[in-house]
């Protein structure tokens, strides 16, 4: 392969770092109104009245919108495929606010200063209500958050009990099976909420174009879903709205809800003026969404020979004030984790999402899988120790192999469970063992009296797009200038997705990267695509591009036959066509002939006329082939302070074919770093009244370069038969292993289990003291 499998530079990389005007704010009209939210200072309150007269008198003020101004359209802001699984539990604005930061009013003015001044003058009379700030107290609490909730799909919600969604799934009799187990682990794990901390905060602007199309340029993940939600909430036909995603400075799931777009579109609709909203860092951190915090109870049984014979997972998740992605996260916590262990006889999953008066949960890299994988892998390590088996041996005995099926794997049907068609996980484990130096380091090595180093490992899987739901269309066109344009609705969030799609097209068309253009993520010009979530861009959007490019190539060969007036077999090397008898035609000759009348009027005359070539194709399938990873951590624990220092980390990845090794490596490194912060120190703190205290990067610490150990990244490629050139996904699975591998490494170093994240020095020391007390 010439283009696929090459470390091609990101096509937009240099332009972005050189500061070219490519991000949303760079592109906004200079006279756009400044729009901001007046936000609730209370975690739960009913609004008695809002007085805006004094505020409207501020020079430069244009518009203040409050709940009485909006049509009560119940909807979800989760930008996911329709019909959404997320409950419809939001209005644009409402007389009730459910978390500190919930929008109360939309304030638009000529300048930021005018808007800030006006916001101080808006008088809101609140009836303050008692909030629920502990998610373990939410279920059946007399305080109820929502009355009006509509669902498209059966998601087992029950607003009266504060249940946003629940998800049960069972195969076999777990209790009966556990009786046959030689060892059973029963542990409860707490995995915390997490902030996305993307570089570019949430932002978008809107305007009417020359023809009166309401155009929205948004730093978002799924322009087509944004378009649909804006249409629904503002009652404007979808075809009169255009949503464009420019370059995006990071998202990680945090931009997969419409926090901004309907509101600025509303302002533009009412005023006719361009309008822009930019969240400051504090808003972006405290008033958008977080990873869902969870309590996960695991019961796992194993036999003496190392077989895991039963698993039960009970998940209680905190969806916060609203239910965006609540059901999907529960489903992923089940389907993208449990199928990893295939020798199992019985498996039982129950997940429930509860409402609280906290910042809403939402999409975040790993999407439930990260949380449940932590619990499952920690339990698997505990089980290995209980059975007296090396954790590596336990994995190798139980992991799903090529050709094996699992009842929870996406794509199954009553006719049969789905099967895994590509995996090199066993090889990933071997390679990681070698890279970390497991055999000489396991379980631990003493450095001095105070410090000891331990190693730990875990494995993970995820999915590639959502099977049976995600659809991606693509179109590839041959231009008369000899270049190709890929039209794709896929959303590159800075990940390099557009580069990957160009590589796939270039490979299929036997050309180089220079000849391939891409137009992406614009509802006005590109075909439909589900957007950037569920690790789907390379796999699903890539598949659509590949099929379209292959179709185009077939059309091109047909065209060349026409021009050469031959029925012979014809070959195309990207630049030149050649028939079996040796007749040749260059691509540029071909294009000249089919484009300009003067050269060959006869092509235009007859029935077989050859228009400019373009081909469309779609990906949409029932399956979601899992990528796999094995992660190995080496940590140093200071027994006297509890401080855990990361020394080394090896991650070996099976993402099928690696389309672009350089981009793949940075995805892995980025995911690991986020996972390390989650493992050791990232933590969202609230005050007693429900205000998020982690409102800046000094109060919410994300990993800095100095916090990161040596990282060794390796790939053990498989070839996924359903993927483009054999590729699977990569974006999310790489988040999963650090927390559980580090937890196990700490255990191997000092013999204590940390079942609640983050594993701060204070908690580690407390666990060490408790253990000493027991001895």
């Amino acid at each position, binding site marked *: 392969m010439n283009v696929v499998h090459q470390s091609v530079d990101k096509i937009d990389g240099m332009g972005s770092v050189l500061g070219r005007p490519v991000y949303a704010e760079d592109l906004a009209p200079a006279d756009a109104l400044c729009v901001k939210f007046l936000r609730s200072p209370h975690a739960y309150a009913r609004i008695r009245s809002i007085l805006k007269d004094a505020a409207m008198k501020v020079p430069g003020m244009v518009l203040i919108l409050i709940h009485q101004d909006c049509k009560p359209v119940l909807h979800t802001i989760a930008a996911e495929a329709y019909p959404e699984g997320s409950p419809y539990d939001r209005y644009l604005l409402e007389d009730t606010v459910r978390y500190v930061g919930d929008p109360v009013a939309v304030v638009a003015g000529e300048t930021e200063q005018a808007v800030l001044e006006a916001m101080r003058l808006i008088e809101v009379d609140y009836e303050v209500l008692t909030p629920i700030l502990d998610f373990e107290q939410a279920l059946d609490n007399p305080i109820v958050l929502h009355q009006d909730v509509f669902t498209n799909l059966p998601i087992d919600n029950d607003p009266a009990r504060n249940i946003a969604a629940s998800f049960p799934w069972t195969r076999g009799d777990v209790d009966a099976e556990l009786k046959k187990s030689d060892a059973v682990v029963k542990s409860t794990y707490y995995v915390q909420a997490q902030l996305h901390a993307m570089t570019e905060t949430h932002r978008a602007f809107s305007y009417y174009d020359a023809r009166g199309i309401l155009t929205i340029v948004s730093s978002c993940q799924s322009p087509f879903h944004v378009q649909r939600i804006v249409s629904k909430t503002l009652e404007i036909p979808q075809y009169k709205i255009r949503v464009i995603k420019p370059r995006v400075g990071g998202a990680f799931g945090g931009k997969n809800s419409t926090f901004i777009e309907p509101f600025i579109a509303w302002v533009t609709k009412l005023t006719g003026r361009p309008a822009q909203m930019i969240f400051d860092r504090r808003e972006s951190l405290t008033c958008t969404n977080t990873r869902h915090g969870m309590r996960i109870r695991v019961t796992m049984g194993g036999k003496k020979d190392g077989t895991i014979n039963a698993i039960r997972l009970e998940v209680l998740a905190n969806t916060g004030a609203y239910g965006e992605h609540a059901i999907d996260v529960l489903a992923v916590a089940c389907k993208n984790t449990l199928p990893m262990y295939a020798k199992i006889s019985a498996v039982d999953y129950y997940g429930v999402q509860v409402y609280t008066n906290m910042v809403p949960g939402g999409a975040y890299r790993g999407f439930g899988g990260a949380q449940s994988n932590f619990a499952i892998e920690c339990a698997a390590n505990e089980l290995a120790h209980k059975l007296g088996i090396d954790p590596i041996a336990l994995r190798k005995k139980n992991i799903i192999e090529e050709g094996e099926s699992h009842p929870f794997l996406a794509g199954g049907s009553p006719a049969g469970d789905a099967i895994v068609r590509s995996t090199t996980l066993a090889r990933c484990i071997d390679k990681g063992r070698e890279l970390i130096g497991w055999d000489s380091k396991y379980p631990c090595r003493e450095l001095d009296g105070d410090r000891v180093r331990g190693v730990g490992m875990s494995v993970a899987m995820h999915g590639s797009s959502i099977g049976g739901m995600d659809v991606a269309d693509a179109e590839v066109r041959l231009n008369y200038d000899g270049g190709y344009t890929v039209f794709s609705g896929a959303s590159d969030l800075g990940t390099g997705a557009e580069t990957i799609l160009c590589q796939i097209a270039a490979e299929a068309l036997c050309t180089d990267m220079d000849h391939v253009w891409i137009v992406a993520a614009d509802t006005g010009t590109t075909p439909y695509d589900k957007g950037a979530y569920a690790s789907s861009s390379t796999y699903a959007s890539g598949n659509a591009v590949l099929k379209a490019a292959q179709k185009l190539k077939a059309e091109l060969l047909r065209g060349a036959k026409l021009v050469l007036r031959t029925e012979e077999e014809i070959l195309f090397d990207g630049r030149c066509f050649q028939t079996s008898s040796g007749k040749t035609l260059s691509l540029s000759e071909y294009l000249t002939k089919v484009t300009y009348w003067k050269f060959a009027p006869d092509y235009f005359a007859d029935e077989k006329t050859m228009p400019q070539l373009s081909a469309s194709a779609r990906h949409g399938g029932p399956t979601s082939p899992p990528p796999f990873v094995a992660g190995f951590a080496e940590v140093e624990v200071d027994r006297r302070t509890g401080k855990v220092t990361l020394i080394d980390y090896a991650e070996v990845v099976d993402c099928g074919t690696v389309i672009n090794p350089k981009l793949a490596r940075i995805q892995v490194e980025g995911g690991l770093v986020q996972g390390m912060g989650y493992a050791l*120190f990232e933590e969202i703190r609230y005050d007693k009244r429900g205000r998020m205290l982690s409102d800046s990067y000094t109060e919410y610490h994300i990993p800095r370069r100095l916090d990161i150990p040596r990282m060794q990244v390796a790939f053990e490629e498989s070839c996924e038969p359903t993927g483009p050139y054999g590729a699977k996904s990569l974006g999310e699975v790489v988040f999963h292993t650090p927390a559980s591998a580090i937890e196990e490494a700490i255990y191997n170093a000092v013999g204590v289990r940390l079942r609640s994240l983050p594993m701060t020095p204070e908690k580690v020391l407390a666990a060490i003291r408790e253990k000493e007390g027991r001895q």
Partner: protein
Amino acid sequence: MIFKEYVCPSTLAEAYETLWSHPGSVLLGGCTLLRRNTRTSPLGIDLGGLGLNQITKTGTDLILGASVSLREMETSCGDLFDGALCKAVSALGGIPLRNVITVGGTVASRFGTSDLLTVLLALDTRLQFYHSGLCTLEEYLNMPPLRDILTEIHIPLGCSRIAFQSMRNACTDYALLNAAAADTACGLRIAVGARPMAAALSEAAADCINRGGTPAQAAEASAAELKFADNHRAGGAYRRELCLVLVERALKEAGI
């Protein structure tokens, strides 16, 4: 912080006069702490035009002007005090931030979790204020708010050995606790900071060593003597445990 007006005086006298004649006016160092304040002030007084950016050495003292940046201090004083000044700021943000932060702003603000204050306290540092004259850092740390201009920081060069220890959840986060032990011209000085209250000396620990105690015993003495409190980064009880470890390690590292 938002300033309605801004001045950049060229003499200390003018700066001091402006400070007192304009109620609510604020002195500007590197503005990194001020930046996070959301209040509005009528006047910001920039100290950048006063020539307070000199680093000089007399026979007895290292003198840092108040406007010297942490980075300037790091790059020119690395060979002094066993590198303790550098070590004390190495975890403070990154180099771009340390290019901006001033020594004067850091000391004047008496920031509780400061690593640098702990080291300066152990080194028996004196502060020169424009109006109130010279005082010890120790006195300043226990003083009510002072409306005066810090001009210079005098660090006696007579310290033969110093070691500094600090503990944080993550590399450039705020310290959970820090400790410095210095053998100075006027004797052993052991300072513990980020309790999370600002640095304080432990006389009991110094006494313990002077009477022939071990570093571990001295650490116990400091943990018993000093106060520790909870904040959202760590609990007071945990800080007390850290005190035992960090003071012992600092003493051992300094070879005391």
